[in-house]
């Protein structure tokens, strides 16, 4: 039995040529239009840090940054992101020097199994980029789009609070 892969797609389907800056490196690729950004990252670039959880935009495990903002990479076509800067969990550290958010997740035990962690960290970094984390209520509300089935939420909030400097309590 042979599996049909995207590479074996019917020749009548025109592939689109796109250029993406992924973690600071420029990639020019010919992609079938139905390739999600998530599948492109994992299957064609080999960046498997971004996780496929539900593939329907419900779990947030696939969260990456597009031009600095957090998005669900499973619900966007790679071709729609032509020309954009994509940052994944692999692109946050500087060599061995972890991003402060990565370090905080370690320091506060912001995970158990770790499957949602790349999405959690990318979402938190993106929300910081958007300057949206003023209070712990902001963290709880705005991080709700990435689900942790282990239930490490308390420690995730603590980690994000540490880096963001968010105050305790309600949004103004």
């Amino acid at each position, binding site marked *: 039995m042979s599996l049909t892969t995207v590479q074996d797609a019917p020749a009548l389907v025109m592939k689109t040529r796109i250029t993406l800056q992924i973690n600071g490196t420029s990639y020019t690729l010919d992609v079938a239009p139905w390739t999600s950004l998530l599948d492109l990252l994992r299957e064609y670039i080999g960046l498997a840090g971004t996780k496929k959880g539900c593939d329907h*935009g419900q779990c947030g495990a696939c969260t990456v940054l597009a031009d600095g*903002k957090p998005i*669900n990479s499973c*619900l966007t*076509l790679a*071709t729609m992101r032509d020309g954009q800067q994509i940052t994944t969990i692999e692109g946050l550290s500087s060599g061995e020097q972890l991003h402060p958010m990565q370090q905080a997740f370690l320091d506060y035990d912001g995970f158990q199994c770790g499957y949602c962690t790349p999405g959690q960290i990318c979402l938190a970094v993106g929300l910081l980029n958007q300057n949206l984390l003023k209070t712990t209520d902001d963290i709880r509300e705005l991080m709700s789009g990435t689900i942790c089935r282990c239930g490490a939420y308390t420690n995730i909030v603590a980690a994000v609070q540490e880096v963001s400097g968010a105050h305790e309590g309600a949004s103004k």
Partner: protein
Amino acid sequence: MNPFSYAKPGQLAEAVTAATSTEAAKFIGGGTNLLDLMKVNVMRPRHLIDLNNLPLRTIEPTADGGLRLGALATNAETAYNAQVRQRYPMLSDAILAGASAQLRNMATNGGNLLQRTRCYYFYDTGTPCNKRTPGEGCSALQGFNRIHAIFGASEQCIATHPSDMCVALAALRAVVRITGKNGERTIPFDDFHRLPGDTPHLDANLAEDEVITAVDLPPEGFADHSAYLKLRDRASYAFALVSVAVGLDLEGETIRSAALALGGVAHKPWRDQEAEALLVGKTANRNQFTIVADAVLANARPYRDNAFKVEMAKRAIVRALETAREGGKQ
């Protein structure tokens, strides 16, 4: 996903032409709903027309003192826009009550209007659904219908419109700007979405070749006294069981004009103009709010599993109006 072809036109006219000349073509904005539905085989376009190269992303004042929301501005850009927050806080609050931060960074304003119902039978290709395949029958009618409509449904479809943003837009009397092969037209928000009737596969009064270019907000934003109250099964990231958008224009304790629309209860955002009229000239107090809430729900027709929505909506209307009277802080 089923294979499809893809184009990204640079001109609006090009996009409109592509929609008329290509079989089974669909426009794509953010894609957060369309791509999801394509993955589960509920929507099967053969060609996608990506609108994101069109210059429809600005949010700018209109000549009449209102505000124009570009169709391609994201939900996040709109909700966090300084003018939207100051002048139309119920709209900002409604948008931020919906979806997640990631989805709001992708979803566009035009796409928000055109998102499909979250009725689980619509999503499940193993069960009949008149919205998905006209003539198949409605599984929700005799099925588990806890999340379904209590207003304006038909024997063909009892699905609800899922948007929060659209509930505020209905209350604010927004106007939808549309361009198609016959040129540009505008449509009042109340007339944009449809009731299911005998054609539940049609969600909106929009032709296949027509593109939403903007949503215009009128000058009146009820900024001093408005609220968006959303009730759902968890505190965040869930669709509304019932939601209420209200605005009051007060002179002392007297209501000069009012806006009221419900979400999660009908095939479209449920603006009730009779209820709005019942508030005008009256004193803004709990007694009057209760009279209005009872009047709104007098026409409700619940199904087996969603009768709770009637009482929930009554209480939500009263609470939202009290919140608005106190200046919108919940």
